[in-house]
């Protein structure tokens, strides 16, 4: 965050940083004051655009084409930072001879399987690694289990040795493959696909390349404007490729900055409450792939691979020790048998549909409001209306707690309170000042919060709730001898309690367990390098190991910023090992010298014989740049002195991803699942591996070449306002925020207002296959129609903060959004969809259902039709 001031150029795309992260944006403004160029690329002119040097309006969902154009600009002109690219990326690595590109297969890579709609990735492998590529079946499982999330802390496992051509001339070296792949992304194509003029595009390419290299760095900033797409992960990959080619990774003022939207959303994936992960990105055991402990561990560490991931055995054993204490022994594989197994996709959207089908009985909502905050709100509410019991823990009476009496479905008659079975418990939660604990912010920094006051009346922390719930359940099952209850008995569940009520478990004790301790002595461990696979250490989350080093709560450190340098290493604690910039070995050249005095960050000190600098080196402290591993070396030892990407299987930054991604080794432009236009680049319209649920209550608007796309002619996007937070539970309840943005509204361009007869401040309603919602109209030049393929594309925008409970209320934008997920992480495409916009208010009551049914009929969806994942040559070439 602070590091942004070191940037010479800041590209903000897929993010409205000034509005969504205003205080973080101070660093952009400071960089700008110091002379940095700030460029904003976004479908609409926002408060970020207002203070940027340049603003480029872009068609929502076309970012890969735009970024691909930048890659093409770099490669065709040879503007890459060659020394960096050669040494630190896999540009020189030779790829399998049978690899076929989307350019050859009209939008598909080699290995696509029409049965599973997944890839057999063996042809994507490096030369000589074929056997390591997961087959289509495996990739299918990987999609179902969002396996790519495991790679948040590291690349996919991969053998050590690779064939390289340092001249980059070999036709099958990554560099040449990349060059061919992006060759078609010319400025003309960018203009056709994105609606960005060639001149505007040139200014970005120029600014980006001009401000990269030895002496200068460019930072790339994105948020959910990139992640919430059916090709979201590949958006970010494209950005990463550019930053690798220009040598901006691991360097001050460079990198790719992901701005996350919630106080501890980073922490929520590090120490996940996600179905497919265990703490530290360890995979949740899969019934087939991980039947035994050995299979599980080997699947992670991949015997013989390079890098720190090779020690996975220690991380796994230590986690199980932390979970099951003395009940985790060598004989019972540290209690691996206690762990439940996943069999496929158990994500939140799958679970919601299972609720509708009556498969789920009980549901806990912990500070979350899916009735408004999740895509396809109607499905969310109908699902919750079909539960046996629901526990809602929040500060305010949110929509998810009251849907049974005042939700939209009550108006339409789809939910009748007298007939709604769901038993609802609302338990008031403690606020952030009424409990202590750590948040992990967007830069992986853990910050400890002190408790200011006791929670009032019945308000309690989640820590209290789950600790007490665990105790109660264990008591109730105490007498049981059933096999299924062994894990409950075996659980290590004793924590010191305190607080005025003497029943609040100590958050510090839990953090200590997360950090890890020596089972013998109980001493807190200094870091993950000390973890053992012999049961002598316990650790709740290996990447957080070190947060309690020396028995001190490192996250509670608060040495004032003004008393430290910009890195501020003594404020809070960042994982891993308090490193503020990851892979910072790359900030020095292969010989370990800073690339330039101006950009010095971490370097090798020959006299002391160690790495030093402004940050904790993200490298073995005493391994010299000249170190070359012996042939048979594995793990950290196999990392050469110039392999900065120490969590990657080959120690290199990946321009081409031989594995770990389900939808391809390189990014390719696919249209959003809901798009008004045919993919101008390939026969394949949308991501062929996307995750959708083919059922009549999870419909998606038709897109070319499917017929009837014209029923939903406009593109809509949703996002945040500065004045509100997510589904509004923490903002629409407060007068001081509500008065600043008091009503649901829709932003439309004057041209669209003309076309549809919308009056400023009048009413309009927006229709998709899922829902129709109404909003007040704001006609504004900040919305601009874009010319795509000589056709005017109108985009509209809505805030997604509004719902039916609170001081100010309005229809929920998320009701409009369908369930189409990115295959790698199962995140929904909520940043772009198609819709119709009509003047006036929507119908109310049962009339609304008829109104929607008519739209579905006209769109050819009344039979629950879904487009095939692999685009079939269109029968109707009806679309313009």
């Amino acid at each position, binding site marked *: 965050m602070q590091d942004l001031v070191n940037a010479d150029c800041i590209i903000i795309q897929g993010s409205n940083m000034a509005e969504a*992260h*205003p205080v973080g944006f*101070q660093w952009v403004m400071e960089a700008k004051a110091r002379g940095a160029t700030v460029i904003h690329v976004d479908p609409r002119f926002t408060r970020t655009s207002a203070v940027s040097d340049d603003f480029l309006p872009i068609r929502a969902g076309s970012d890969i084409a735009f970024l691909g154009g930048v890659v093409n600009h770099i490669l065709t002109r040879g503007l890459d930072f060659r020394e960096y690219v050669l040494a630190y990326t896999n540009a020189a690595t030779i790829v399998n001879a049978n690899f076929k590109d989307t350019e050859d297969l009209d939008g598909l890579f080699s290995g696509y399987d029409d049965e599973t709609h997944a890839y057999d990735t063996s042809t994507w492998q490096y030369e000589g690694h074929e056997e390591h590529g997961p087959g289509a079946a495996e990739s299918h499982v990987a999609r179902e289990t969002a396996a790519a999330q495991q790679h948040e802390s590291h690349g996919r496992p991969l053998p050590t040795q690779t064939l390289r051509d340092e001249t980059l001339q070999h036709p099958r070296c990554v560099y040449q493959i990349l060059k061919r792949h992006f060759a078609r992304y010319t400025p003309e194509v960018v203009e056709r696909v994105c609606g960005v003029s060639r001149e505007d595009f040139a200014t970005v390419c120029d600014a980006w390349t001009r401000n990269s290299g030895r002496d200068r760095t460019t930072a790339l900033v994105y948020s959910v404007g990139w992640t919430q797409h059916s090709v979201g992960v590949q958006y970010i990959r494209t950005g990463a490729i550019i930053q690798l080619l220009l040598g901006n990774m691991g360097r001050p003022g460079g990198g790719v900055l992901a*701005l*996350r*939207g*919630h*106080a*501890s*959303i980073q*922490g*929520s*994936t590090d120490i*996940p*409450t*996600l179905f497919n992960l265990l703490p530290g990105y360890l995979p949740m055991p899969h019934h087939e792939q991980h*039947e035994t402990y050995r299979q599980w561990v080997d699947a992670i560490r991949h015997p013989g691979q390079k890098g720190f991931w090779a020690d996975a055995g220690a991380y796994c054993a230590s986690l199980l020790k932390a*979970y099951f204490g003395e009940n985790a022994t060598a004989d019972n594989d540290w209690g691996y*048998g206690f*762990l*439940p*197994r996943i069999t496929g996709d*158990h994500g939140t959207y799958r679970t919601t549909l299972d609720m509708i089908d009556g498969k*789920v*009985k009980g549901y*806990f909502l*912990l*500070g*979350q409001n899916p009735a408004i905050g999740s895509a396809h709100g109607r499905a969310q509410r109908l699902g919750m209306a079909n539960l*046996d019991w629901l526990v809602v823990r929040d500060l305010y009476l949110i929509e998810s*707690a009251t849907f049974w*009496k005042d939700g939209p479905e009550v108006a339409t008659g789809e939910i009748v309170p007298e*007939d*709604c079975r769901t038993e609802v418990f609302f*338990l008031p939660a403690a606020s952030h000042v*009424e409990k202590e*604990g*750590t*948040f992990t*912010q967007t830069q992986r920094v853990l910050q400890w*919060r002190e408790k*200011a006051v*006791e929670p009032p*009346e019945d308000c309690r*922390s*989640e*820590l209290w709730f*789950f600790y007490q*719930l665990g105790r*109660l359940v264990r008591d109730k099952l105490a007498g049981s001898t059933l096999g*299924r209850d062994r*894990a409950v008995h075996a659980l290590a569940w004793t924590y010191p309690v305190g607080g005025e009520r003497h029943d609040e478990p100590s958050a510090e004790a839990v*953090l200590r*367990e997360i950090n890890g301790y020596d089972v013998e002595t109980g001493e807190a461990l200094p870091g993950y390098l000390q973890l053992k696979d012999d049961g002598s250490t316990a650790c709740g*989350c290996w990447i957080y190991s070190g947060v309690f080093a020396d028995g001190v709560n490192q996250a509670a450190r608060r040495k004032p910023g003004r008393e430290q340098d910009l890195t501020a290493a003594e404020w809070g604690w960042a994982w891993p090992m308090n490193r503020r910039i990851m892979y910072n070995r790359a900030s020095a050249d292969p010989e370990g010298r800073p690339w330039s005095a101006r950009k010095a960050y971490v370097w090798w000190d020959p006299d002391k014989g160690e790495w030093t600098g402004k940050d904790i080196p993200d490298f073995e402290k005493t391994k010299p740049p000249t170190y070359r591993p012996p042939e048979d070396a594995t793990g950290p030892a196999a990392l050469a002195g110039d392999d900065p990407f120490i969590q990657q299987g080959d120690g290199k930054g990946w321009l081409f991803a031989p594995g770990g991604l389900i939808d391809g080794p390189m990014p390719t432009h696919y249209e959003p699942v809901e798009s008004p236009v045919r993919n101008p680049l390939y026969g394949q319209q949308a991501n062929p591996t996307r995750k959708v649920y083919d059922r009549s209550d999870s419909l998606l608007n038709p897109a070319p070449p499917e017929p009837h796309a014209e029923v939903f002619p406009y593109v809509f996007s949703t996002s945040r306002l500065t*004045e509100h*937070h997510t589904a509004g539970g*923490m*903002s629409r309840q407060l007068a001081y*925020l509500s008065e600043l943005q008091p009503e649901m509204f829709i932003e439309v361009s004057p041209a669209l207002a003309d076309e549809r007869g919308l009056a400023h401040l009048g009413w309009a309603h927006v229709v998709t296959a899922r829902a129709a919602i109404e909003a007040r109209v704001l006609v504004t030049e900040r919305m601009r129609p874009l010319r795509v393929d000589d056709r005017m594309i109108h985009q509209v925008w809505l805030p997604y903060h509004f719902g039916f409970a609170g001081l100010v209320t309005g229809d929920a934008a998320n009701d409009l959004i369908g369930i189409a997920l990115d295959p790698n992480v199962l995140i929904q495409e909520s940043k772009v969809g198609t819709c119709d916009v009509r003047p006036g208010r929507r119908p109310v009551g049962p009339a609304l259902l008829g109104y929607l049914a008519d739209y579905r009929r006209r769109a050819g969806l009344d039979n629950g039709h879904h487009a095939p994942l692999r685009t079939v040559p269109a029968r109707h070439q009806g679309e313009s």
Partner: protein
Amino acid sequence: MGVRTWIEGWPVYRQLTGTDPLGRGAAARSPHTDALTPRTETADSVARSVCPYCAVGCGQRVFVKDGTVTQIEGDPDSPISRGRLCPKGSASKSLVTSDRRQRTVLYRRPYGPQWEPLDLDTAMDMIADRVVKTRAQTWQDRDDAGRPLNRTMGIASLGGATLDNEENYLIKKLFTALGAIQIENQARI
């Protein structure tokens, strides 16, 4: 009070005798004005916290008087936020102290037309009962091939991303032991 002090307390007298004949400053000050002190000065304690809204992680100082939060403002010590807050962060005191906040347990029985009050301990016991019952009803021991599953598909959870790491840790730890696997988070959304 004596006539003399009363006279001297009279601004007109101060205008005539003091440095402020026009009565625009020194002479016109009121007792209330002279007694002004900021709440931050009179607080019993100050807690160092972190903003609960977005992920920037701005430092907050929470001022407490007589057991209630009287002010929340940016922590100038934070190298991340340097004491600044956005409108949401600035509204944190309202978030915590608003009278719209629900502070007691509410219960809606099946088919019930409205909320009912419920005692916290009873609620906890009822929830524990339902967890045990649902788990027993929906337990899956092994798959078709006889491989272990050890799980229930009857209990799901969705957490917000404003939960503490320690909380997420206990949530995942408990649910894993209970065999509940549909444990999700805003991080997926």
